[in-house]
């Protein structure tokens, strides 16, 4: 990994460090199409991922998790923040300087059919980026590489001259993964990459992603709403609600002892698969408020079962917990237990 910093001090430096990321989208109206409001899709988000690890970014629709992924690649332009990747701030780069970085930061999306050009053959889809970045000296060398990549994602290299529609959903996702790997990335952002797949196919893709990580030392940012997948593959988890990270920590601890009431409600709502223990709990009543007008104070207070007076007035900071962080006054290690609602 030539671009990675060397030396003892650099060992502590994560592969990706995001600080205060803010991506707001304007809501335009009127003849002049002036912004009348802002959707705070990503609102002061910070996290980091160490090389070779998997961070899962979880939350429900509209929480901003996908906008985070897109902001990192600058597929949407953030208004503020820093994105340190391999020691370079991506948000400060000119478009021309961003291009070589994008090679090392690839993305796999939810719907493989929408992200594969239906008129291109699989060989050309996978080789397109190689050509753009000058990988391989000739067409035949690139074809050989494509064949190796297809074999690596367990597709038949003999099928490289076929079109995407000739493949099943799971095979198409393998094509997308092969395309991402073609550029030898260090970080792969998987945005709901297994969400559209049936469970028997999902397990195949999850195993493939896991094998590739072990072999190639890949780092994953796994954006998903599926907590079963998160528990299975993430090292660390960041939970988002209305544009903010409300809890972050090691996967094992977060699932065993969630600190933030939203994380608790989210986990309680997941249907149980244990035939002896059923009944998920609807612990967060009501609907998610609009991200263009998040509630004052703690953004979760309108649905929180443990809400108290302060939550509506003051926005809680991220408090450090035993192994992570939680954006809830109840997680404040310095505070005496407040007049909280009924204990869970």
């Amino acid at each position, binding site marked *: 990994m030539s671009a990675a910093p060397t030396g003892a001090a650099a060992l502590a430096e994560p592969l990706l460090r995001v600080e205060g990321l803010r991506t707001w989208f304007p809501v335009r109206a009127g003849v002049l199409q002036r912004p009348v409001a802002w959707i705070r899709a990503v609102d002061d988000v910070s996290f980091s991922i160490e090389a070779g690890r998997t961070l899962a970014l979880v939350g429900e629709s509209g929480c901003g998790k996908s906008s985070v992924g897109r902001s990192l690649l600058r597929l949407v332009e953030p208004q503020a923040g820093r994105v340190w990747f391999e020691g370079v701030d991506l948000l400060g780069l000119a478009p021309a300087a961003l291009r070589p970085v994008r090679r090392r930061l690839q993305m796999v999306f939810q719907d493989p059919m929408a992200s594969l050009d239906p008129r291109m053959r699989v060989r050309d889809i996978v080789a397109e980026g190689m050509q753009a970045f000058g990988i391989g000296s000739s067409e035949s060398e690139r074809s050989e590489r494509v064949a190796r990549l297809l074999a690596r994602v367990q597709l038949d290299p003999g099928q490289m001259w076929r079109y995407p529609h000739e493949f099943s959903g799971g095979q198409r996702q393998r094509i997308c993964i092969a395309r991402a790997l073609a550029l030898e990335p260090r970080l792969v952002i998987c945005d709901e990459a297994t969400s559209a797949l049936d469970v*028997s196919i999902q397990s195949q893709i999850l195993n493939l992603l896991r094998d590739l990580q072990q072999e190639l030392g890949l780092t994953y940012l796994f954006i998903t709403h*599926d907590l*079963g997948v998160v*528990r299975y593959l993430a090292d660390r988890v960041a939970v988002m609600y209305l544009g903010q990270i409300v809890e972050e920590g090691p996967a094992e601890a977060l699932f065993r002892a969630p600190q933030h009431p939203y994380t608790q*409600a989210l986990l309680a709502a997941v*249907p149980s698969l244990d*035939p002896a223990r059923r009944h*998920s709990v*609807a612990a967060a*009543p009501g609907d998610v408020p609009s991200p263009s007008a998040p509630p004052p104070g703690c953004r979760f207070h309108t649905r929180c079962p443990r809400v108290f007076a302060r939550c509506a007035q003051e926005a809680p900071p991220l408090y450090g917990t035993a192994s992570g962080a939680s954006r809830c006054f109840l997680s404040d290690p310095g505070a005496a237990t407040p007049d909280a609602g009924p204990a869970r």
Partner: protein
Amino acid sequence: MTRVLEVEGLVVSFPGEHGRTPVVDRLDLELDAGDTLALVGESGCGKSMTALSLLRLVPRPGRIDAGRIRIDGEDLLALRVDALRRLRGHKAGMIFQEPMTSLNPVLRVGAQVVEAIRLHERVGVLEARRRAAELFERVGIPDPAERLDAYPHELSGGMKQRVMIAIALAARPRLLIADEPTTALDVTIQAQVLELLRELRRDTGMAVLLITHDLGIVNEVADRVAVMYAGRVVEVGARETLLGAARHPYTQGLLRSIPALAPRGARLPEIPGSVPSAGAWPSGCRFHPRCPRVFDPCKQHDPDWTALPGQRVRCHAVARELAS
């Protein structure tokens, strides 16, 4: 127990390259009042087409080729169109995955509930509106009287699904067919809707046929489970038996491949290959090319039911095991 739904030998087909291709093949189901039966399977297994055929809603050029469907004693396939229209809604209501596509976007939701009520009962508009408000309250819509005047786009996904449930309940049906009712919803909202379905079933004694791909949802709401693969039901049983002691290799494979059940970081057990599409179904047992327990008879003969206590299964390997 009153039998509310009885399906025998149902065949639904679509035109294919080589004549008509069945997508649902000789399917049997039965469902009693107050019970919830989950019909589970992966995409393309025919579960949604089964649901649609129960109200004779199979879209053209698909059609029901054979079989018998009885809903609350009435032979559905023998009904004339006007009688069929009365049966829909009155004896069986249906809710779908996408509430937005089922609601009329230019009509206030209250008007749509009122319409459903008045289709089945001779009541005045005011009385129907009062009943609509009651239904809204029943399905957990806050400020029901006000929400009657909302347009669908003004409501969240969870609220729209509650409106759909209210419409389905308008004529107090004996059977509710719910096709992936929470798939488009977030997990905290899904938990609310599942809770509502459980309550309604308990309070009304309705039978519920739940179509889903999610075994977690099955565990949350079902009493009995039928697993579909390639157009056929391959295993039926009580929820505890089916999720705790499935016998069909396909059901077992499905359960094992769920990441939530796997130890962290361990390799997930896979079902090799992919679901065959209709028209390309293998001979014999349709699961045999992907089955870890395959042996000769599986390739030639479609397995018949093998009965076990509390469950039945279409599998040669299980039949052989029991015989020996």
